Structure formats: structure tokens, C-alpha cells
């Protein structure tokens, strides 16, 4: 795989290969020395046009665990602040000949566009409200650590689906892995046509939430009520908050973070035994290691414009100490 741009472009075999690789990196994470030399000498640029804590830090740490050199660029305080176009920023950063660019951008398709302007592999760390493929992959991994398989599992994605790239990537990823997906939220926040696009069910109430094996709550932006999507945060919480009354004992709870405590999740379920929120963050590291491995050393079709020196481009096998 040359780039990771969208779940929509992946096959189930791609997802399974990444899961398997992540498992092997999880084993590395249990050693005393958690670093492997796999991507030694490779340069990875992390370019974030939106604020992020967990995605940027986990990609950065994943790259370091693989012994890559990481350059982090944030839009604030950089040339982006001075009005530089995305194309020119990519040209500038590409002059350092990075092997990969991890990019988060407020607009759909930004990562895909970047592939036209660089020789580097491009990893989409969130493009507008379109996709967030690494999040979906780490969520699938988190579930597979507990459920063995997603085949036939019922997953409810609850909240502001309209504005959520996580919902779009997860719905497609879970479906691809065999799960039955229901998206649930106020009708104003469920886009028309999403059921046929993603092959999922749509619900506007939580009354059948009990059928779910997994409840995936989305972040509810407080500004949504000023745009008349919901009358008030209070009414939203009354109808859609996942709390201990609504969440059954055998149901798993997920959330992409950051959580609005008391809005989409009640504190007791967030901190309770069903919550996988911390496990999701842990998975983020190994899955992102696996993603970087996949695009930089995973084989598949040969990379166009790859550097000719084989000693530089051949990856060191996993597991050898750095």
C-alpha cells in the first residue's frame, strides 16, 4: 500500500494485514526496549492543520518507536500562518525528501491532493469531515482484541454523524469486517443518503440500543445548538447520552476522544468497566506503527521514484533490537 487515504479505498485483506502487524508491534511494546530499527534513516513529516492531541502524538511516537526521524509541523506559527498554499508547503517539505507525510487538514480530500505533489507516501490523519482511517483501524483493532471477530456483531454509532469523519471511517471499516452498523442521532445530524452509501441502518432513538454489542459514542460539539441542529445540549444529552441506565453490562463502550463528560457520555460509564476509551488510545500507537510500516515497508507494488540505493530502502526485519 503506497498511501493510506481512506477506509473506502481498502480491502478487507488490507485491514487484516494491518491488524496482524499491529499485534506484532504490541509484542514489541511489552519489551524493556520498545524501539525497533525498522524505519531507521527514514524521515516522516507530521503536518497538522488542525489541533490534535492523541492523533499527532501517537503518530509521532509510532514513528519514533520505528526509529524514523520525525519532523512535526503545526499550522500555527508556521508559514501556513503566513498564507502559504498547501501545494507550496508540500513542495517545501518535500524538498527534505521525506518518505512519508502524515497530514491532518480541515478539508475533505486534502491528503489525496497532496499525493499529486510529493513522492512521499501520504497518510491521512483526518481530512475535513470526510475520513479518519487510522482512527477506524485502531478502533477495529481494539474490538478485535476483545471479540476475536466483528462478524455479525452489532455496532451502534451514536451522535453527530453529519459532522464526523470518525463515523464515516468507522461505519465503513466495521461493515467491511462483517459487523452490522447502525448510526443513531437526532435527524438533523444524520445525513440523508448515508444508509445506502454505507450499508448501515439509521435510528433516531436509543430505544433499541440494547441490541448493540458495541456502543460507539461521538463527540458532540457545543456550537451545534447555535446552528439549530439541536435545541439545547440539555435536550441532546437527555435523548442521546450514553449512561448507566442505557448501557447494559455486556455492552462495550467506545469514544474517539476528546470526551465531553456529561454530554455524550455520563462520567460513570466513561470510567466504568465497559469503557474501551483508554484501550483505544493504547491501540492507536501500535496501529499507527503498523500503518507507517505498511506504507513504507509493507511491499505491495513498487514505489515510483523510490530511491535507488537498496541498502537505504530495505527495511530491517521487525523484532531485531535497535
Amino acid at each position, binding site marked *: 500500500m503506497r498511501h493510506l487515504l481512506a477506509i*473506502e479505498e481498502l480491502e478487507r485483506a488490507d485491514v487484516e494485514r494491518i491488524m496482524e502487524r499491529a499485534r506484532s508491534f504490541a509484542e514489541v511494546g511489552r519489551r524493556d526496549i520498545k524501539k525497533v530499527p525498522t524505519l531507521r534513516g527514514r524521515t516522516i513529516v507530521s503536518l497538522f492543520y488542525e489541533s490534535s492531541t492523541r492523533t499527532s502524538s501517537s503518530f509521532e511516537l509510532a514513528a519514533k518507536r520505528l526509529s524514523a526521524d520525525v519532523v512535526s509541523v503545526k499550522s500555527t506559527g508556521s508559514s501556513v500562518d503566513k498564507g502559504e498554499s498547501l501545494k507550496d508547503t508540500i513542495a517545501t517539505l518535500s524538498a527534505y525528501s521525506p518518505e512519508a507525510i502524515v497530514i491532518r487538514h480541515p478539508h475533505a480530500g486534502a491528503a489525496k*491532493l497532496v499525493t499529486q505533489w510529493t513522492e512521499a507516501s501520504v497518510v491521512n490523519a483526518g481530512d475535513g469531515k470526510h475520513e479518519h482511517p487510522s482512527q477506524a483501524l485502531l478502533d477495529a483493532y481494539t474490538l478485535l482484541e476483545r471479540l476475536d471477530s466483528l462478524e455479525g456483531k452489532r455496532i451502534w454509532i451514536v451522535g453527530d454523524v453529519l459532522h464526523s469523519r470518525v463515523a464515516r471511517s468507522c461505519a465503513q471499516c466495521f461493515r467491511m469486517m462483517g459487523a452490522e452498523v447502525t448510526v443513531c442521532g437526532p435527524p438533523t445530524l444524520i445525513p440523508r443518503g448515508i444508509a445506502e452509501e454505507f450499508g448501515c441502518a439509521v435510528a433516531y432513538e436509543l430505544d433499541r440500543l440494547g441490541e448493540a454489542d458495541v456502543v460507539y459514542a461521538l463527540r458532540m460539539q457545543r456550537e451545534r445548538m447555535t446552528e439549530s441542529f439541536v435545541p439545547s445540549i440539555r435536550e441532546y444529552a437527555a435523548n442521546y447520552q450514553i449512561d448507566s441506565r442505557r448501557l447494559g453490562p455486556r455492552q462495550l463502550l467506545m469514544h474517539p476522544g476528546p470526551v465531553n463528560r456529561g454530554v455524550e457520555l455520563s462520567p460513570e460509564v466513561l470510567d466504568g468497566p465497559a469503557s474501551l476509551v483508554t484501550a483505544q488510545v493504547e491501540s492507536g500507537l501500535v496501529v499507527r506503527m503498523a500503518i507507517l510500516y505498511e506504507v513504507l515497508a509493507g511491499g505491495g507494488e513498487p514505489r515510483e521514484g523510490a530511491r535507488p540505493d537498496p541498502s537505504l530502502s530495505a527495511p530491517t526485519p521487525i523484532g531485531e533490537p535497535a
Partner: protein
Amino acid sequence: MSLELRPISALDWRGTEAQPAGDLVVRAARVVCPREGIDAGHDLVVRDGEIAELTAPGAAEVDGAEVIEAEGLAVFPAFFDPHVHLRTPGHEDKEDVETGSRAAAAGGFCGIVAMANTAPPVDNAAHVAALREQARKQAAVPTGFMATVTAGMRGGELAEMADLAAAGAVGFSDDGLPIASARVLRRALSYQRLVGLPIALHEEDPELSAGGWMHEGAVSAALGIGGIPSVSESTMIARDCALAAFEDARIHVQHLSARESVEAIEAAKAAGVRVTCEATPHHLVLTDEEVRSLDSRFKMNPPLRSEADREALIDALRSGTIDCIATDHAPHTTNEKEVPFEAAAMGVTGLETAFSVVYTELVRPGVLGLGTVVERLGAGAEALGFVPSRIAPGAEANLALVDLEAEWEAGAEGWESRSENSCFAGRRLHGRVLTTVAAGRVAYRQRSFAMGVA
């Protein structure tokens, strides 16, 4: 108020000064003129800017006239585009009168009307006069200029419409923006009784379209891009048709994109409202499925809509509910398009591909008749108060010579327009305009044809 139709050559262009109307014989062409009910082989004789006679193929007297050997080629009445953007003043990096009118000539158009959303907008008489002067020096085909309906295109106070009409504006439009206030539009429609020029409307309820960058539907749901619902267009059309009826005004609705809009126009026409409307080649040929590529060339306003919308537009064009094809030729710089979809400028060029696209995608597969398409590509003239081109003795010699068998790749040889943002670039197209004649003067010759190797 009945509108007196004016000849297209009453518009400003450099033709009259740059070259006298020499005699011209188009030899043995297939002459297609739906208005005259002609589709047959003829020689066509042009004299003093007018069509002098149609004779049997090979029968016309040459007698010192320039001869265009047109055996195997088709001749149509040249097209008229009621909706283009020439971007001058303010955005000459995108287009100007010379490049835009050259693109029109290359597309077989003998007349165009430029919108007023320039920087600054065309909202005063001096501005109109300056543009007309520029057209007399630079325009390759007769070119008219719209003035804004509202001062500064701000949607508030009216522009000095009578003054603008006296200065030679051909009509009024705030195109690019809707006139959101029903009160303001009502006043403009009432004032039309004094001014007597058409008012063309960009129909969009900004409350409903806010935050949207593409058609609201399954594709926008999948892409997570804000949607522009069809009703943002159709509800405004219904409102404005009601206002036009109330004021007994005459309106031209620009760039229909949605099935619901077609229904609103149908209802208004059935009720006797004096409304004409247009559709663009891209809305007739493409749908929002193109946007899945996230290619900013497919970003325009109104947006590409669903297949059901496209089919409704085609049916309406066939039936005449939609009066004419207009390109909404909207040049932008490469910079404004080499960005993510949501950040890109809205609009695409269209003059150089209009006929070929519609011919390739709709006429050749048998969806629309050639005669219907030729008629609708000319009917924009009438909608804005001009005599539509026709091929008959005594008519103004506005001709498009087309090789219907020619195949070409859009954009492969570059563009006459200064802008490259065509949503059809790279497509194989059938039917190529070889020569355009406006008021008896050759306004365009396709290069290879001019060199005799076509």
C-alpha cells in the same frame, strides 16, 4: 411590456471596425436551422453581413467572394450565450473581454452577455460605457454587459437601473449572488416597467445553502462535505415567479440544476408567468457522482446534482420548459482550483466545449435531437431581448461551421480562454467548431481548418 428584439450585431464588438463584411460563399454544407425547418445540403451566400441566398449545392455564384469548402460539414445558426463571466475589471488574471470573447467564437457563439459580478461590480453608467468601449476594441464577437440589480451587488438599494439602461446595459443581474430580500427584488421587478430590460436571477436561498459546497445527497453524506439542498434553488424560483406574476414583470432564471426547480418553472409557465430559463452543459451531462473524486474542477454553483435531476433537466430542455443552454462560463486561475474541494473557487469554463459536450453526450446517443440542441444554443438571445440567429435570406449572417465527425480531446491543444478550469478537460469529444461567422465577418477559424488540413 413587450420586448422589442434587437439584432445581435447591435452589441459591441471589434468586428465592424476591424474588417468590412466581405462576401462569403459556404459551399455544399449540410445546413441545419430548426427555426426555418431546414436540414439539407445547400450553398450559402453571405453579402453585406446578411444571408443573401441559399442555393442548391454547387450552384452559388462565387464572383470574388471568399469560398469555404464545406462538403461533409454542417452549418448551424451561430449560438448565443446569455451567461458568461469575462472577469474584467478586477480579475484579468482569470479572463478579459478579448480572451473570453475569443473562447466564445471558438465555441461557435456569435454573441455573449457578460455578468456584472466583477470587482468592482458593474453598477454605474460610466462602468458600462467603459466596458462597451473595451468590447469595441477587443471583443471577437458581439458582447453585451449586464449591470447589477442592486448597488454594489449588496442586495440592498437598487442600482441606478434607468441610467444603466441608457448607458447600454443589456439587462440586470446580481448573478453570483441571489437577491435574498423579496422586498428588494419586488421593487426591481416593479421598476422594470420603467426600464424595460430583462432581469436575470441566480436563484439560491442563502439560508438553506449556507455551509454547502456540493449537492446535498448520498455523495455529500459519504464525503462529509456540506450540502446545498435542491430546495435552496427551487423555493427561490417559486418565490420569484410569484413576485414576477404580481408585478407583471419578465424574469430570466439562470442555471437550473434541480428537478424541483423544473417543476417550479413548469407551474409558473402554466400559470402564465413571463419567465424564461437556462441550463448549462455541465448540469445536463454530469452528476454529483463526479465529486467522489474530490476534484475541484467539479465544483460549481449551483452544484452538480443527482441523476434524477439531470434527467429532469434534459426532459425540460427537450420540451422547451427550459428555453436555452447557457454555459455560465466561469474562469478561475489554477491557484484557486489547486486546493481541496471545499476551499476551491466555484465555477468552470464552458464556451469552448458547450456544443461538443452536448453533441457527444446527448445528441449522438440519441437523447436529444440535433435540431433541438442547435435551437436551444441560440435561444438565449431571445430570452435577453435579441433576435436569435437563423439561416434564411435577409437574416443576419451568424453561422457556426461544424465538423460533426471530428474527434478531439478537450484542452489538448490549449484553450482560447485564459483559464484552464474546464470540467471536461481530457475528454474525447465529437463535433468541432471550425469557423464562426458573426454578422457576416469571420470571427474564428480553427487552426488546422484555416491551414487547409482539416
